[in-house]
């Protein structure tokens, strides 16, 4: 190929192209696709790079921020949302986005996840759910399906799973959405909506881990796992009009929950503003 060919324009404007690319994820891993959606959504909304903070924990998905030319914070395992809460509360004008996975966000990070939902702090959490711990080599996670295999569930997973969307909704998040790495255009749209939502917004991206989940459960390579997502996905708008037997075993996608609720940082700002005149009197 001629040397003059540049990486794709979106990449060139938003990625830290001088860093060591290609990225660290396995060939065909959906996390790279999600990163593309995030960048396109931000590009479309026209946010300034200086006002964006990408905060992640530890895991495959958490290696995403290092590639992006924003304020990026790669924190400790499971604690991205706690760190992000500090960033957001200290700098409320910033758009704070948490990148996490099913292990990082729901196992060790579960406590911070549900409390950030309850608090409805204006943070967009993008949870890339590949149903396994990829970084550490294929262990069972809170979303590994019952009976499915993992290196720490060699005889099939005895446990049940979270429904991430219902968990977030029950915990109090004001916006919950889901898509898969097959439905890239839907991901672009939903991430955009999540970023614009004032309050705790969750976007769950179903992704493929063919290296571990696919191999251990004989679900094929990246392409076949992504094609399977097309089969089981069902937009919630369609599900509402279809008879129950048509929606059984389907994975609901789209905007699953969207309500208006007081947002933590703006409530706190009101509290600060109540003391404005007292502050002025003191400084006078």
């Amino acid at each position, binding site marked *: 190929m001629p040397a003059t060919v540049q990486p794709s324009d979106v990449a060139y404007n938003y990625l830290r192209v001088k860093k060591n690319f290609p990225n660290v994820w396995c060939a065909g891993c959906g996390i790279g696709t999600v990163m593309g959606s995030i960048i396109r959504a931000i590009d479309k909304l026209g946010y300034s790079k200086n006002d964006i903070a990408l905060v992640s924990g530890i895991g495959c998905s958490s290696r995403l921020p290092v590639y992006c030319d924003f304020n990026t914070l*790669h924190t400790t395992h499971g604690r991205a949302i*706690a760190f992000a*809460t500090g*960033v957001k*509360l*200290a700098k409320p004008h910033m758009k704070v986005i948490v990148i996490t996975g099913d292990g990082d966000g729901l196992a060790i990070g579960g*406590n911070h996840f549900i409390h950030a939902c309850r608090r409805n702090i204006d943070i967009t959490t993008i949870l890339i759910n590949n149903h396994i711990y990829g970084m550490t080599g294929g262990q069972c996670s809170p979303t590994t399906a019952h009976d499915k295999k993992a290196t720490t569930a060699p005889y099939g997973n005895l446990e049940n799973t979270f429904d991430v969307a219902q968990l977030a909704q029950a915990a109090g998040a004001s916006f919950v959405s889901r898509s898969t790495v097959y439905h890239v255009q839907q991901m672009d749209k939903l991430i955009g909506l999540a970023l614009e939502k004032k309050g705790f917004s969750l976007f769950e991206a179903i992704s493929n881990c063919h290296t571990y989940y696919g191999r251990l459960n004989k679900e094929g390579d990246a392409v076949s796992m992504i094609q399977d997502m097309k089969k089981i996905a069902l937009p919630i708008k369609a599900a509402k009009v279809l008879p129950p037997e048509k929606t059984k075993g389907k994975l609901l996608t789209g905007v699953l929950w969207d309500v208006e609720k007081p947002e933590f940082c703006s409530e706190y700002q009101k509290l600060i503003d109540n003391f404005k005149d007292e*502050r002025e009197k003191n400084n006078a």
Partner: protein
Amino acid sequence: MAQSKNSVRRLVQGNEASMLGALYAGCNFFAGYPITPSTEIAEGMARMLPKKGGRFIQMEDEIGSMGAIIGASAAGAKTMTATSGPGFSLMQENIGYAYITEVPCVVVNVQRGGPSTGLPTKIGQQDTMQARWGTHGDYTAISVAPASVRECFEQTVKAFNFSERFRTPVTVLSDEVLGHMREVITLPEEGEIEIINREKPDVPAEWYHHFEATPNLVSPMAGFGEGYRFHMTGLVHDPEGFPTADTNEIRKKLSKLRNKIVRFSDELVQLETTMMDDANIAVVAYGTAARAAQQAVLMARDKRIRAGLIRPITIWPFADDQIRALLKGIKTVLVVELNMGQIVHEVDRLAHRHCKVESLNRFDGEVLDPVEIFKRILEVK
């Protein structure tokens, strides 16, 4: 706070003094979690911060609190949390994160009897070594130990100045007795105590490296949203902040984290002595235990026993040179602690070649009183 222009004398609780000291130092963000005996600090912050335009949040646990104050500090705020033993144990991993990412923040540990749930409403000085070695990996701690309500105020201000100056987490080792007792103290006027803030970068954004090598090994620090974009990670990283596996870069980074503190430790030393000039027996004590120890030294002097007190206020880094010098000509050193013996090992390391090292310990939740210490002085002299 000093409302009017002149300073204010007021009856203040130790924990409240720690809170007021933080506000005086410019703390504008607090994240904490309720735990006896430190909760008054969080309650005070919840009341005072919104008034001053700062921000308070009660997180779901101490790990979250530590994460939040690091995130806020990375975004430019001056941040603090307060806890006690159990919470301090939970915070250790993130304290290590603040250390490697060189994020200034203050952790006040109002110690209680340990281990585990221990003696929640009783005193202990049993977290001294945890403050030094609590987080995993090679770590260089800065810890200060107040011994009065006034010092709860001043040492919290010092903790903020040290953390901003050295871009590293600093622990204040208070305790239940100090935290809950009240003393009349003089609150300083604004500007009376010098406040240090982190050095800001003056290079254009595209040249900015978040961990730039500098002569004093402390890099100028921008915050998120201040026009500089950078990466921070708990992985060992290069001066720009990106993960590295290069052994040279790893050695440089870990050495920077240590040397930026130990090479300038003379700025950190805080040591108070009583009647050490002609002493032949030295009592070493810190924090609340030092109050009774000082009294015991005076009692010994009444009996014409040439006793003296060495009270480290900065516990970590331990003032090796200064204490070694003070112990020259000393026959016996008695280390008095409200634990089963922790700082005694540091003193022993410095002094065992040329003087007898003795210890007096109490770890049942009560303070050692001066008479007990005086009797021990008589025994060991």
